[in-house]
C-alpha cells in the first residue's frame, strides 16, 4: 500500500528581502528549501513506512530544479519520487494546483492501493493551507487536517485514527482509508539522512510527469485554471509598534530600553 506524500520547494523565506523601491520580493540568489511543513509530513510518512511497511511515493509540482528537493526526500527514505513539471502547470493557484495533484494521485491509485495522502499543513510561501483540502475534495477522500499525531492505522479494518489539534482542544478522529492527512510541524522531529541513502539519492531516478503524461485540459491547470490572479505584491506599511534600539549590536542597552518601556506601560513591574 502507498503513502503518497506531497512536498513543495519554496524559497527560504527568511532570506527573501523586499526591494525597498519597487516593493516586490527579491528572489535572486535566495536558496530553495523543502517547505518546512512538508518535511514533517514526509517524516510522518516515513514513520508509517517503518511501522506498517507502506511504500512512500513523494510528489512535487514545480520547475525542473525541484528535483533537488525530491532527491532530498529520497535521501531521507522515500521509495520513489515523481516530479510534476510542465510550463502549462506554471502560475497555478491552490485551485489549479490541487487539480494536478489530485489527478496524479488518481494515476498512482490505478497501479497500487493508496492508504494515505500526506501533506504539510501549509507552505511558507503561500500560507493558504488550501491545497491539502483541495486534493481531498477532488478525490472524495476524508480530510484530516491539523493533525499532530497519528494514533494508529488499522490495516484490517482499513481505518486510521488521528489526533487533530484545534484551538484549545484536541479531537481524536477515526476515518476510513484512504484519507488525506495534513500535518502540523509539532507532530514529529524529522530524521537526518544517512550517507548511504544520500549517495543513492544523488543519481536515483526521478520520474518526470509533464502534461503529456498527465493529459489534463489546459484551462483547468496553470495560470488559466487559476481563480486568483496576482495583481501586485507589496509589503504592508507598519501602522503600529516601533523598533527599539539595535538588538544585534547593543543587546544590553536595547534590553534596558525595552524594560523601561514595559515598566512605563505597567506591563511589568519591579517588586
Amino acid at each position: 500500500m502507498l503513502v503518497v506524500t506531497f512536498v513543495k520547494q519554496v524559497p527560504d523565506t527568511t532570506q527573501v528581502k523586499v526591494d525597498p523601491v519597487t516593493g516586490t520580493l527579491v528572489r535572486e540568489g535566495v536558496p530553495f528549501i523543502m517547505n518546512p511543513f512538508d518535511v514533517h509530513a514526509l517524516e510522518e510518512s516515513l514513520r508509517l513506512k517503518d511501522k506498517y511497511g507502506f511504500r512512500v511515493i513523494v510528489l512535487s509540482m514545480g520547475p525542473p530544479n525541484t528535483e533537488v528537493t525530491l532527491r532530498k526526500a529520497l535521501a531521507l527514505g522515500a521509495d520513489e519520487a515523481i516530479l510534476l513539471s510542465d510550463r502549462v502547470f506554471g502560475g497555478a493557484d491552490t485551485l489549479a494546483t490541487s487539480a494536478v495533484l489530485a489527478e496524479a494521485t488518481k494515476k498512482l491509485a490505478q497501479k497500487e492501493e493508496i492508504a494515505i495522502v500526506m501533506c504539510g499543513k501549509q507552505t511558507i510561501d503561500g500560507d493558504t493551507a488550501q491545497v491539502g483540502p483541495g486534493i481531498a475534495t477532488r478525490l472524495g477522500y476524508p480530510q484530516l487536517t491539523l493533525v499532530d499525531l497519528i494514533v494508529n492505522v488499522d490495516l484490517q479494518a482499513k481505518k486510521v485514527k488521528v489526533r487533530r489539534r484545534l484551538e484549545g482542544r484536541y479531537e481524536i478522529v477515526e476515518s476510513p482509508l484512504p484519507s488525506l492527512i495534513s500535518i502540523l510541524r509539532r507532530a514529529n522531529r524529522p530524521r537526518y539522512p544517512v550517507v548511504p541513502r544520500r549517495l543513492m539519492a544523488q543519481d536515483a531516478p526521478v520520474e518526470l510527469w509533464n502534461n503529456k503524461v498527465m493529459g489534463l485540459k489546459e484551462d483547468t491547470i496553470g495560470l488559466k485554471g487559476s481563480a486568483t490572479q496576482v495583481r501586485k505584491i507589496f509589503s504592508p506599511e507598519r501602522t503600529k509598534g516601533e523598533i527599539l534600539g539595535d538588538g544585534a549590536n547593543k543587546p544590553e542597552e536595547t534590553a534596558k530600553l525595552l524594560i523601561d518601556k514595559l515598566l512605563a506601560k505597567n506591563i511589568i513591574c519591579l517588586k
Partner: protein
Amino acid sequence: MSVNVAVFIPVLVIAAALFIWSCFRRFRLVLLGKPANRFRNIGKRVKSMIYFAFGQRCTVNHGYKFGLNHLVLFWCFMILLIANTEFLLHGLSPNVISFSRLTHGVYYPLAYIFDVLSVLALASVIIAIIRRLVFPPYYIQARSRDAFTILGLIAVLMLAFFSLHGTEIAQGKEIAAKYMPISNAFSHIFSGASAGTLGAYANAFWWLHAVVLLSFLNYLPYSKHMHILTSIPNVFFRSTTKVNTQLPEEFKKGNTFGVGQVNQFSWKDLFDSYSCTECGRCSNMCPATYTGKLLNPRLVIHDIKVNLLKNGPLIAQSKATNMPLIGGGQEGSIADEVLWACTTCGACMEVCPVFIEHVPKIVDMRRNLVEMKAKFPTELLPFFENIEQRSNPWGIVPSDRIKWAADLNVKPFEAGKTEYLFYVGCFGAFDARSRKVTLSIAQILNTAGISWGILGKDELCCGDSLRRLGNEFVFDRMARDNVKIFKDRGVKKVITECPHCYNTLKNDYHQYGIELDVIHHTELLNNLIKSGKLSLNGSKDLGNVVFHDSCYLGRYNNIYEAPRQAVTSVTHRVPTEMERNLEKSFCCGAGGGRMWMEESTGKRIDVERVEQALAKNPSTICVCCPYCLTMFEDGLKDKKADEKVQVLDLAEIVAGALKK
C-alpha cells in the same frame, strides 16, 4: 650448578611455543584493521623511538614523578634481558654457554651490573607496590590483580636471582662473588648449610627463576603488560605530524563510513589498544572525565581491545559478532554518550606515553553514528541543518555575515589588491560578543597599515565542528566549496580570528589540495607589536591578567608564546598562569562540537575551568578563541563573578592599548 637439561628443554620449548602462539593469536587480529601508512620517514621514526621509548621521555614528563620509577625499571629490564637470555641458553647447554666463561675483565663488571640492577629493579617494584597500596593515584585502577601479579612475578624473579647466586657463592662456585654485593649478602643466609642442602637449594632456586621467568613471558600477552612488547613499536609507528588531522573519507556508493565495527579501525588503531599501559594519564588530563562525564579515554582504548579480542576471531572467520563496538552496557562496548562527551581537546594524546591516538578513534566512531545511523544528540539536528542550509551554526541569513562591518569601510578581498584575507568566521561575524573582537582586529589591522579584505556574505563556515562531530559528508562538501572560493579568488594569506578556523584552514584543507599561509590573530598581533607597527601607550589597568590556552592554538598548533608575549607587551607584566596551562591546558568545554550540545552530566566543564581561573584572583581573563570567550563568560555568570572579572580576547586587550 648442573641443570637437568633433559627436563629443561621440553619446558622451554613448550613455554616458547605457548608464548609464540599467544602472540600470533593476538597480533593476527591487528591485521584485521584497515591499512594505514606508518612506514614513511623511517629516520624520524627511529629517532623518536630512541628518544621517547628508550630515553623514556614519554614516561618522565608532565610532572609525573613516578615516571622515574618506570625509567629505572625499564632500563633494568632492558639490561637484565641480556642476563636472562644467557640464563635460558645456559639452561640448554650449561657447559657451553655461560658468561663466566668470558675473560674476567668482562665477566666481573657484568656480574656487578646484573647484581646491582637486580636490586634496583626490586626496589622500583617495591616502590610501585607501596604506591599502589598506600597512595594509589585516583586515575587508574591501581590495585588491579594484573598489576600485583606482574609486580609480584618480577619481585620473585629478583629474589630467585639473588638466592640462586647466593647459594652458588655459598657453594664457592661463583668466581665473581666479590663483585656481587647483594648476592654475596644473600649467601650468608645459606652459609651454615651442608653441601648437599646447598646443591638442592641451588637447584630449587634455578627452577624457581626459570619457571617464574617463563610464566612472566607467557603472562604478558594476556595482560596490560602486553605493552612491554607493543609500546616501543607503537612509538615507532606514531603519527609523525603534530596535528593528528582526521583522514578524509571517500564518498562512494557501497562504502561504509566511520567505525562501527572493530575491524573498521586501522591496524594502527588496533595496535594502539594493545599498547595501552593503563597508566591513566589520559583520564587524569581529560576535562570530560574530570567533570564526571561517562567518557574515560583509557576505557575507550580498553574497550576497543576487549572488543577486538572478543569479536576479532569471529570476524576473521566471517562469523556474526554479538558484542557491538558502539552501544555500551558491557566491557568492550562503548556507549554513545561516551563518544559525544569528547571535546577533542587532545589533552589525552598529549600526555600518552606511548602515543595512543584517542581523538581520531572517537571521531571515527562518531562518524559511524552520524553517517550510517543518523544517531546523535537531538540538539545537533538543527545545528547540522543550519550549517548545511545556511553555512552557519544558528541558521542566520548568510547576508548578515557582513553586518559587523556596517559602520566600517571594509574592502572585499581582491587578489593583487589586498594582501590578506581576514576570514572572520561564524562567531566573529554573527555573535554579538565576538563581533567586538572582530572590530578590534579590524581596528588593529588598519592601524598597522595591513592590506586586508573580507569575503563578506560569500564567506562560508569552515566546518570545524562538523568534522569533529563526525559529519564528514557535509564537512567534505563545505571544505570543497571553501577551497574553491579560496582558489577562485586567489587567496594565499589568511588571518583568522578563531583557532578552530585556523586549524581547519591550515591543517584540514591541506587534504583538499590547498596550502594556505594561515596566521591566527594572536601571532599576527604579536608580530606587529614586535616589529613596531603598533604603538602602544598602555591601557586602562587590566589588573591581574590570567591567561587561558585554547586547545586548537596550543596543543593543536603549538602557539603558546605569541599571545603571552603580546599580553606582556601591553601590561608590562607576564600574564598569570593557571595550574593547568600550556600543553596541559584544560579545555573550556566547547571544542569538538560540544559548543552545540547540552552538558547535562556531571559538572559543567566551563564552570570547572572558571573556578581554576578564579583561584588565581584575576581581574581579567585573556582568551584567544570565541568559544573560550563564550564559555568563560557563561562560567563567570554561573559563579556570579562576572561583575568582578572581565573576559577579553587578546585583540581587545591590544586594541585598548593603541595610541589614540
